[in-house]
C-alpha cells in the first residue's frame, strides 16, 4: 500500500505545500470574516486589510523556509 500512500501524499501536496502557510491563511480569512463586519472601518478598506494580512503570511512563510 506504499504506492497508495505516495499517491495520496502527492495529491495532497498539489494543494498544500506548506501546512503552516495554508493554516495561517485559513485562520486569517476566518478572522477577517468573523471580526471585520463588527469593526468600525470604512467598507472599502476591508478588502485591503485581507490583502495586507495575506502578504504578511507570504513573507513569514518565505523567511521561515529561508531559515531552514
Amino acid at each position: 500500500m506504499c504506492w497508495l500512500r505516495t499517491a495520496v501524499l502527492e495529491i495532497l501536496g498539489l494543494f498544500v505545500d506548506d501546512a503552516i502557510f495554508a493554516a495561517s491563511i485559513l485562520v486569517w480569512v476566518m478572522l477577517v470574516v468573523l471580526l471585520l463586519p463588527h469593526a468600525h472601518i470604512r467598507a472599502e478598506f476591508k478588502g485591503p486589510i485581507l490583502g495586507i494580512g495575506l502578504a504578511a503570511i507570504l513573507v513569514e512563510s518565505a523567511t521561515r523556509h529561508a531559515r531552514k
Partner: protein
Amino acid sequence: MQRLGGSGRWDRVAFGTTFQIMMLEGIEVVFIVIAVGASGFGLLVPASLGALAALLAVILLGVVVHRPLAKVPEHTLKFIVGALLSAFGSFWVGEGVGLDWPGADWSVLGLIVWFLVMAQFAVSLCRMQSARRAVDVGD
C-alpha cells in the same frame, strides 16, 4: 529539470511536472464550473462552454507565445506568476466573503503591484538571512 529529465526528445520530468500542474488547474476549473453552475438553473452548460473556450484560448496562446516565454528565466516566470495568482486569489477570496475593494475590480492591479513589492521584500529578507548564516558559518 533539464539535468534530471534525461537525454533525448522525451523528458519525463517535464511531462510529470506539467501533468501535475495541469491536473491541479483542471480541478480548479471543475470547481469553478460547478460553483458557477450551482448559482442558477441552466448555468452549467454556458459555464462548461466558457471553460472549454478558455482551454482552447490557452492552447492557442501557448502555441503562439511558447518560444518567447521559454526565453524568460524560470525563476522570474515563477515569481511573476506567483504574484499574479496571489493577487487574483486574494481578490476573489475577498469577493467571496463579501468584502469591498477600493476601485472595485481595478483593485486587482493594485494587488498585483502589492504582492510583487512584498515578494521582492521577502526575497531581500531571505538573502539577508542567507548572508548572515554564511557569516556565522564562516566564524
